Protein backbone atom coordinates (compact mmCIF):
# COMPACT_ATOMS: atom_id res chain seq x y z
CA UNK A 1 0.00 0.00 0.00
CA UNK A 2 1.51 3.33 -1.07
CA UNK A 3 1.96 6.33 1.21
CA UNK A 4 -0.54 8.26 -0.91
CA UNK A 5 -3.19 5.59 -0.36
CA UNK A 6 -2.59 5.70 3.38
CA UNK A 7 -3.03 9.48 3.37
CA UNK A 8 -6.27 9.21 1.40
CA UNK A 9 -7.56 6.47 3.72
CA UNK A 10 -6.74 8.73 6.67
CA UNK A 11 -8.89 11.53 5.25
CA UNK A 12 -11.71 9.12 4.41
CA UNK A 13 -11.68 7.65 7.93
CA UNK A 14 -11.74 11.10 9.59
CA UNK A 15 -14.57 12.36 7.36
CA UNK A 16 -16.50 9.13 7.97
CA UNK A 17 -15.99 9.70 11.70
CA UNK A 18 -17.53 13.19 11.37
CA UNK A 19 -20.52 11.71 9.51
CA UNK A 20 -20.96 8.98 12.15
CA UNK A 21 -20.88 11.61 14.92
CA UNK A 22 -23.66 13.56 13.18
CA UNK A 23 -25.75 10.39 12.74
CA UNK A 24 -25.29 9.45 16.41
CA UNK A 25 -26.21 12.99 17.47
CA UNK A 26 -29.37 13.02 15.34
CA UNK A 27 -30.42 9.62 16.71
CA UNK A 28 -29.76 10.99 20.21
CA UNK A 29 -27.33 8.19 21.00
CA UNK A 30 -25.07 9.34 23.81
CA UNK A 31 -24.80 13.02 24.66
CA UNK A 32 -23.25 14.17 21.40
CA UNK A 33 -24.75 17.43 20.09
CA UNK A 34 -25.48 17.80 16.37
CA UNK A 35 -22.91 19.82 14.44
CA UNK A 36 -25.54 22.54 13.89
CA UNK A 37 -26.42 22.63 17.58
CA UNK A 38 -22.79 22.75 18.56
CA UNK A 39 -22.01 25.54 16.10
CA UNK A 40 -25.12 27.38 17.30
CA UNK A 41 -23.84 27.15 20.87
CA UNK A 42 -20.38 28.40 19.81
CA UNK A 43 -22.03 31.27 17.90
CA UNK A 44 -23.98 32.48 20.94
CA UNK A 45 -21.04 34.80 21.60
CA UNK A 46 -20.04 37.42 19.02
CA UNK A 47 -16.43 36.18 19.00
CA UNK A 48 -17.57 32.64 18.22
CA UNK A 49 -19.93 33.91 15.52
CA UNK A 50 -17.14 35.95 13.91
CA UNK A 51 -14.75 33.00 14.06
CA UNK A 52 -17.18 30.54 12.45
CA UNK A 53 -18.22 32.99 9.71
CA UNK A 54 -14.56 33.83 9.03
CA UNK A 55 -13.90 30.09 8.69
CA UNK A 56 -16.75 29.80 6.19
CA UNK A 57 -15.38 32.73 4.18
CA UNK A 58 -11.88 31.25 4.28
CA UNK A 59 -13.21 27.94 2.92
CA UNK A 60 -14.80 29.76 0.00
CA UNK A 61 -11.63 31.70 -0.73
CA UNK A 62 -9.44 28.61 -0.41
CA UNK A 63 -11.44 26.37 -2.72
CA UNK A 64 -13.10 28.77 -5.14
CA UNK A 65 -10.80 31.78 -5.48
CA UNK A 66 -7.44 30.02 -5.46
Amino acid at each position, binding site marked *: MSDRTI*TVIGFVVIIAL*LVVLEILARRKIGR*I*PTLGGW*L*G*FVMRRPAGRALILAGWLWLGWH*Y*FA*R
Partner: protein
Amino acid sequence: MPAGNVSTDEAARRRAAAIDHHPVPLAGGEARGQVPAGARPARNAIIGAAVIGYAWLLGGAAPFSTRALLEVLLPGAVLGAIAYARPPERIPAPESVDMAGSSYWIIAIALLFEWEASAVRDGRPWHPSLTDLINPLIAPHPIKTAAIVVWLLAGWALVRR
Protein backbone atom coordinates in the same frame (compact mmCIF):
# COMPACT_ATOMS: atom_id res chain seq x y z
CA MET B 1 -56.42 40.76 48.09
CA PRO B 2 -55.47 37.63 46.20
CA ALA B 3 -58.82 37.05 44.51
CA GLY B 4 -58.84 40.58 43.10
CA ASN B 5 -55.33 40.21 41.78
CA VAL B 6 -56.18 36.95 40.04
CA SER B 7 -59.18 38.52 38.41
CA THR B 8 -57.16 41.53 37.25
CA ASP B 9 -54.44 39.27 35.87
CA GLU B 10 -57.03 37.17 34.07
CA ALA B 11 -58.58 40.27 32.48
CA ALA B 12 -55.17 41.51 31.38
CA ARG B 13 -54.36 38.11 29.88
CA ARG B 14 -57.63 38.07 27.94
CA ARG B 15 -57.02 41.59 26.61
CA ALA B 16 -53.53 40.58 25.50
CA ALA B 17 -54.88 37.42 23.86
CA ALA B 18 -57.48 39.46 21.98
CA ILE B 19 -54.76 41.75 20.58
CA ASP B 20 -52.26 39.00 19.73
CA HIS B 21 -53.88 36.14 17.85
CA HIS B 22 -50.65 34.22 17.42
CA PRO B 23 -50.38 30.97 19.40
CA VAL B 24 -46.75 31.68 20.23
CA PRO B 25 -44.96 35.01 20.64
CA LEU B 26 -43.48 36.23 17.37
CA ALA B 27 -39.78 36.78 17.01
CA GLY B 28 -37.19 37.53 14.34
CA GLY B 29 -38.50 37.75 10.77
CA GLU B 30 -42.11 36.93 11.69
CA ALA B 31 -42.24 39.80 14.16
CA ARG B 32 -41.35 42.15 11.30
CA GLY B 33 -44.09 40.78 9.09
CA GLN B 34 -41.86 38.44 7.08
CA VAL B 35 -43.63 35.32 5.84
CA PRO B 36 -42.22 31.80 6.33
CA ALA B 37 -39.64 30.66 3.77
CA GLY B 38 -41.95 28.18 2.06
CA ALA B 39 -44.83 30.63 1.62
CA ARG B 40 -43.49 32.32 -1.52
CA PRO B 41 -42.56 29.63 -4.05
CA ALA B 42 -42.05 32.10 -6.92
CA ARG B 43 -39.71 34.26 -4.88
CA ASN B 44 -37.83 31.18 -3.67
CA ALA B 45 -37.46 29.94 -7.25
CA ILE B 46 -36.00 33.30 -8.31
CA ILE B 47 -33.58 33.33 -5.37
CA GLY B 48 -32.59 29.72 -6.13
CA ALA B 49 -31.95 30.55 -9.79
CA ALA B 50 -29.92 33.61 -8.77
CA VAL B 51 -27.81 31.54 -6.36
CA ILE B 52 -27.13 28.88 -9.01
CA GLY B 53 -26.37 31.57 -11.61
CA TYR B 54 -23.97 33.29 -9.25
CA ALA B 55 -22.29 29.98 -8.43
CA TRP B 56 -21.91 29.27 -12.16
CA LEU B 57 -20.33 32.71 -12.63
CA LEU B 58 -17.92 32.24 -9.71
CA GLY B 59 -17.12 28.71 -10.87
CA GLY B 60 -15.92 30.15 -14.17
CA ALA B 61 -13.59 32.73 -12.63
CA ALA B 62 -9.89 32.14 -13.15
CA PRO B 63 -8.04 30.97 -9.99
CA PHE B 64 -6.04 33.67 -8.17
CA SER B 65 -7.83 36.41 -10.13
CA THR B 66 -9.23 39.58 -8.59
CA ARG B 67 -12.62 38.67 -10.02
CA ALA B 68 -12.63 35.32 -8.19
CA LEU B 69 -11.61 37.02 -4.95
CA LEU B 70 -14.32 39.66 -5.22
CA GLU B 71 -16.95 37.08 -6.16
CA VAL B 72 -16.10 35.10 -3.01
CA LEU B 73 -16.09 38.20 -0.80
CA LEU B 74 -19.41 39.54 -2.15
CA PRO B 75 -21.61 36.76 -0.64
CA GLY B 76 -19.78 37.24 2.65
CA ALA B 77 -20.58 40.96 2.57
CA VAL B 78 -24.21 40.35 1.59
CA LEU B 79 -24.75 37.73 4.30
CA GLY B 80 -23.00 39.97 6.83
CA ALA B 81 -25.29 42.87 5.90
CA ILE B 82 -28.39 40.65 6.14
CA ALA B 83 -27.27 39.24 9.49
CA TYR B 84 -26.67 42.75 10.85
CA ALA B 85 -29.48 44.80 9.31
CA ARG B 86 -32.31 42.37 8.69
CA PRO B 87 -31.60 39.06 10.40
CA PRO B 88 -33.87 36.15 9.44
CA GLU B 89 -35.78 34.18 12.02
CA ARG B 90 -33.03 32.36 13.85
CA ILE B 91 -32.94 28.74 14.93
CA PRO B 92 -32.64 28.98 18.72
CA ALA B 93 -29.19 27.98 19.92
CA PRO B 94 -29.04 25.47 22.78
CA GLU B 95 -28.52 27.02 26.21
CA SER B 96 -25.77 24.50 26.87
CA VAL B 97 -24.12 21.50 25.26
CA ASP B 98 -22.66 18.47 26.95
CA MET B 99 -18.92 18.96 27.25
CA ALA B 100 -18.12 15.25 26.92
CA GLY B 101 -20.32 15.06 23.81
CA SER B 102 -18.73 18.20 22.36
CA SER B 103 -15.28 16.78 22.93
CA TYR B 104 -15.96 14.11 20.28
CA TRP B 105 -16.44 16.88 17.72
CA ILE B 106 -13.36 18.74 18.93
CA ILE B 107 -11.23 15.58 18.72
CA ALA B 108 -12.49 14.65 15.23
CA ILE B 109 -11.96 18.18 13.88
CA ALA B 110 -8.52 18.39 15.52
CA LEU B 111 -7.64 15.06 13.86
CA LEU B 112 -8.68 16.45 10.47
CA PHE B 113 -6.55 19.58 10.98
CA GLU B 114 -3.59 17.52 12.18
CA TRP B 115 -3.77 15.15 9.20
CA GLU B 116 -4.09 18.14 6.85
CA ALA B 117 -1.24 20.02 8.54
CA SER B 118 1.08 17.04 8.26
CA ALA B 119 0.26 16.73 4.55
CA VAL B 120 0.79 20.46 3.91
CA ARG B 121 4.07 20.41 5.85
CA ASP B 122 5.29 17.39 3.89
CA GLY B 123 4.30 18.91 0.56
CA ARG B 124 5.04 15.64 -1.27
CA PRO B 125 2.88 14.05 -4.00
CA TRP B 126 2.66 10.85 -1.97
CA HIS B 127 1.29 12.77 1.03
CA PRO B 128 -1.36 14.98 -0.56
CA SER B 129 -3.35 17.54 1.40
CA LEU B 130 -7.15 17.56 1.39
CA THR B 131 -6.98 20.53 -0.99
CA ASP B 132 -4.81 18.55 -3.42
CA LEU B 133 -7.39 15.76 -3.34
CA ILE B 134 -10.49 17.93 -3.62
CA ASN B 135 -9.33 20.40 -6.27
CA PRO B 136 -9.27 17.86 -9.14
CA LEU B 137 -12.68 16.56 -8.05
CA ILE B 138 -14.31 20.00 -8.23
CA ALA B 139 -12.44 21.11 -11.35
CA PRO B 140 -15.35 20.44 -13.79
CA HIS B 141 -17.48 23.57 -14.00
CA PRO B 142 -20.84 21.96 -13.09
CA ILE B 143 -19.35 20.21 -10.04
CA LYS B 144 -17.61 23.40 -8.92
CA THR B 145 -20.92 25.22 -9.33
CA ALA B 146 -22.65 22.62 -7.14
CA ALA B 147 -19.89 22.93 -4.52
CA ILE B 148 -20.29 26.73 -4.50
CA VAL B 149 -24.07 26.38 -4.08
CA VAL B 150 -23.45 24.12 -1.06
CA TRP B 151 -21.00 26.70 0.31
CA LEU B 152 -23.52 29.54 -0.15
CA LEU B 153 -26.29 27.50 1.52
CA ALA B 154 -23.93 26.72 4.41
CA GLY B 155 -23.32 30.45 4.79
CA TRP B 156 -27.06 31.10 4.90
CA ALA B 157 -27.50 28.31 7.46
CA LEU B 158 -24.83 29.95 9.62
CA VAL B 159 -26.60 33.32 9.41
CA ARG B 160 -29.78 31.62 10.67
CA ARG B 161 -27.96 30.19 13.69
